[in-house]
């Protein structure tokens, strides 16, 4: 019987597998972009042709000037003063609408700042979420005047 001593071992060459794998890793690392995927939810009300009429006297009106200054019910106010101002009013009527009305020239970030502050009403001691309304210019022109 003849023994074949020089028979090579059976093996799959895997030395280049790591090279290929690292090439793919580099590709994914370069193409991955970390993007903002979070935001503030802003539920839009039904676009009703006949919405309930909200009298301005029954609501709280927050106007935002182009400089970012706030006028709440005709009085200038700081952002952190809004919730304490609203607290007694909302204790009497938790459904009282709070209307945010930015000036057309107001930067968007100031509106988001006020909206974010009002959304945190419950964290500041309010019993219920604030009934926030942000009417668009079309709605203001159609239904308010």
């Amino acid at each position: 019987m003849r023994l074949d001593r020089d028979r090579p071992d059976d093996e799959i060459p895997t030395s280049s597998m790591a090279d290929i794998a690292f090439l793919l890793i580099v590709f994914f690392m370069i193409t991955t972009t970390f993007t903002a995927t979070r935001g503030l939810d802003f539920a839009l009300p039904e676009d009703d042709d006949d919405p309930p009429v909200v009298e301005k006297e029954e609501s709280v009106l927050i106007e935002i000037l182009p400089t970012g200054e706030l006028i709440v019910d005709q009085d200038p106010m700081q952002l952190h003063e809004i919730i304490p101002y609203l607290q007694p009013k909302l204790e009497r009527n938790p459904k009282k609408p709070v209307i945010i009305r930015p000036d057309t020239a107001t930067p968007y970030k100031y509106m988001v700042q006020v909206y974010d502050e009002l959304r945190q009403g419950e964290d500041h001691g309010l019993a219920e979420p604030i009934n926030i309304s942000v009417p668009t210019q079309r709605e203001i022109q159609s239904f308010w005047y």
Partner: protein
Amino acid sequence: MKLKATIEHKPNIPTASMADIAFLLIIFFMLTITFEVDKTQVVLPKTTLRYEIPKQSAYVSIDPNGRIRVSDGNEQSALVSAADEVLSMAAGVIAMDPQKVFVVKSDGEVSWDKVDEVIDALKRAKVRDVYLLSDQRTVTDG
């Protein structure tokens, strides 16, 4: 003198598990990769509250120059000339999927009238769920 028989070891680095580690990393990147449908460069406003936006949401972006781009969540965003085009796009998307979530990605310095036009168009298109894309507000932001 008695000489010890020396066994010669070939120096080698064990690389057998390297491919396993590499493939583990590949799987991680493949699962976490999200293809951006909108690549508009904006400085987002900062908020304390931030909620996770559902995947494949439709996007309406407004860049610092007030240019509006829209995407249905599947295709890359395209430039539109007026907010009325946002209305027609959003109406088409809502007709296909009434529960579709829309994301407003606007630069913080854009004037409210631009954003107002977009939100009004979304309202008229019967969009219910809108997210205002934002960055995290921290204590250092004041």
